[in-house]
């Protein structure tokens, strides 16, 4: 186990290193016009000359070769400094720290909702195959996978909010540790919108897994030795069906984050996704690279956790 963990963590470091390199080079490969974009926002707007742009690039060090700049960036990043935002001159790490809690909460809330609804419905749908809960679950699955989260978000923000007579996109949203209730009021709707497609994916997987396992010999044995149906389903069927579901969750996590970016944008949640959209518009390279690396780290770590949890769910699995 220890050796396995060390190897996997080394793998994480390698992937994050590659990812930061790819992100940095992508953002820098197309010279574009950071200066023009940023200066166009300022008061002097129209009077941008070549000279101003060159001075600007020099100040930010953008006139040096990309590889050299990546070297500097990496050296600073390893020591915990992701540079400063081009637009606001704030520390990127600080910007992320301020916004990360809301994004984390949104993603975690969505995941928890997805699991808590998808797993029981998926199991029920398979066990009572052909009944109403099964059909309801399957219709939800098909729709949940087809309806884009941005359309669902728009529907919720503009129609559901109207019926409920609340304005979802402008709810004040304090941190969860400042005001638990007020925070949840603002977070429930976006989290539900975000969880829809994950919920559908997990439900589908859970159902097909249970359908497959329920005909296994050991399930028949469990029934034959007189176990209650409840105990057969929970101890024998569910436990064995859960690992592929968890794997899918790991695979889907990057998509969940993509969804979170859009949901934050629609519901105007001040998280790192919304910050990313703004930063991309402004060609704020440091901010974009910093956020991308943090998000990538999250995705890789979640997948590591998923892999490690296999041993906990299925004691037969040992890591060597």
């Amino acid at each position: 186990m220890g050796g396995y963990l060390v190897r996997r963590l080394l793998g994480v470091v390698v992937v994050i290193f590659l990812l930061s390199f790819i992100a940095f080079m992508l953002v820098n490969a197309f010279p574009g016009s950071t200066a023009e974009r940023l200066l166009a926002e300022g008061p002097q707007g129209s009077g941008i000359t070549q000279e101003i742009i060159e001075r600007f690039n020099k100040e930010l060090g953008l006139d040096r070769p990309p590889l050299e700049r990546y070297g500097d960036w990496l050296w600073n990043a390893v020591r915990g400094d992701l540079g400063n935002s081009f637009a606001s001159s704030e520390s990127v790490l600080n910007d992320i720290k301020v916004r990360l809690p809301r994004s984390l909460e949104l993603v975690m809330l969505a995941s928890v909702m997805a699991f808590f609804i998808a797993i029981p419905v998926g199991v029920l749908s398979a066990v009572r195959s052909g009944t109403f809960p099964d059909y309801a679950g399957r219709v939800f699955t098909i729709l949940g996978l087809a309806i884009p989260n941005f359309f669902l978000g728009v529907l919720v923000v503009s129609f559901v909010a109207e019926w409920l007579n609340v304005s979802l996109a402008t709810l004040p949203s304090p941190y969860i540790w400042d005001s638990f209730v007020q925070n949840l009021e603002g977070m429930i709707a976006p989290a539900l919108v975000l969880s829809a497609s994950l919920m559908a994916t997990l439900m589908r997987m859970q159902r097909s897994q249970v359908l497959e396992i329920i005909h296994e010999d050991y399930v028949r044995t469990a029934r034959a030795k007189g176990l209650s149906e409840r105990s057969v389903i929970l101890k024998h069927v569910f436990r064995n069906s859960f690992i592929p579901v968890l794997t899918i969750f790991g695979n889907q996590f990057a998509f969940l984050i993509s969804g979170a970016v859009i949901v934050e944008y629609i519901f105007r949640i001040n998280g790192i996704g919304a910050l990313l959209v703004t930063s991309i518009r402004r060609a704020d390279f440091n901010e974009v690279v910093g956020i991308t690396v943090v998000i990538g780290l999250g995705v890789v770590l979640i997948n590591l956790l998923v892999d490690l949890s296999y041993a906990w769910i299925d004691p037969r699995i040992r890591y060597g």
Partner: protein
Amino acid sequence: MTTSDPIAVPLDVLLPVGPSRLRSLIKMARERPLGAFGAVVIVILLITAIFGQDISIAGETIVPGFAPYPADETDVVNKLAPPTWPDHFAGTDSLGRDMFSRIIYGARTAMIIGLAATGMGIAIGTLFGTISAYLGGVGDMVVQRISDAFQALPPLVLMMVLVTMMSPGIGTVVFVIVIFLVPGTQRVIRGTVLSLKENTYIEAARTIGASSPRIVMQHILPNIVAPIMVLSTVTIGGTILAEAALSFLALGANSAANPTWGFILFEATQRGQLTRWPWLALTPGVAITLIVLAFNLFGDAIRDILDPRLRGTGAGG
């Protein structure tokens, strides 16, 4: 993908030939009504994409389109008009442009991007996956680690960064979606090829002195046609969704004469007060949902027929 038997599935299962072609199609539709529904919607969309707007070559209109109005024709007396038969079937937007026509025009962009990006993404992914699995060693490891890095990036984030740094347009959007499709595709194909490689007929071919390119072309590629087709059909829905998401963030292939569905929805959100003119959001939203639904259902049916083992692997999830 640990099975070692060949994945070859006779293609006539999918494309029945002979005089009974129509009958077997009807039988297939009866057995998989959802898949058949998807196929019908896809055919309607294809017709709309091709014949909805004028087909012109070098500025010369050859076949006039069936869309009632050009997508950017404004009707100033009918701004934000609710759906009325037969003038403005799906209402008009805040500039008085006909929503139904705009959706028809959007179909072509959606289809071009959906097909082109999926085709190229799967082709390049297959190339990488096959070579990576076949050669193994250091090259394989490098390709896999780079893939890992790309897959740790949320797809939308990757695409947004790329689009912003390049000039927007159909070519850019296709390129960006291809970049995001390649890592996942190459992984699935690599797994399939790895298990194929263990077959004795590959070993036999090598023993009689067949060259690597010959083995790949003659023995491996024909056997991964089924998974490639399955992967392609289940991927198109996701590709169209990705394009729509980019357009929704105003980073897509939208232009005044050729609006994209995602952008039409974006415009609706900019207008606000959607409860007063719900058709602004519902028309593009339902169009996107319906076509993604159709491709998902059709893809599922194709997968069940061609390669049931891919069920639940999340391919295209």
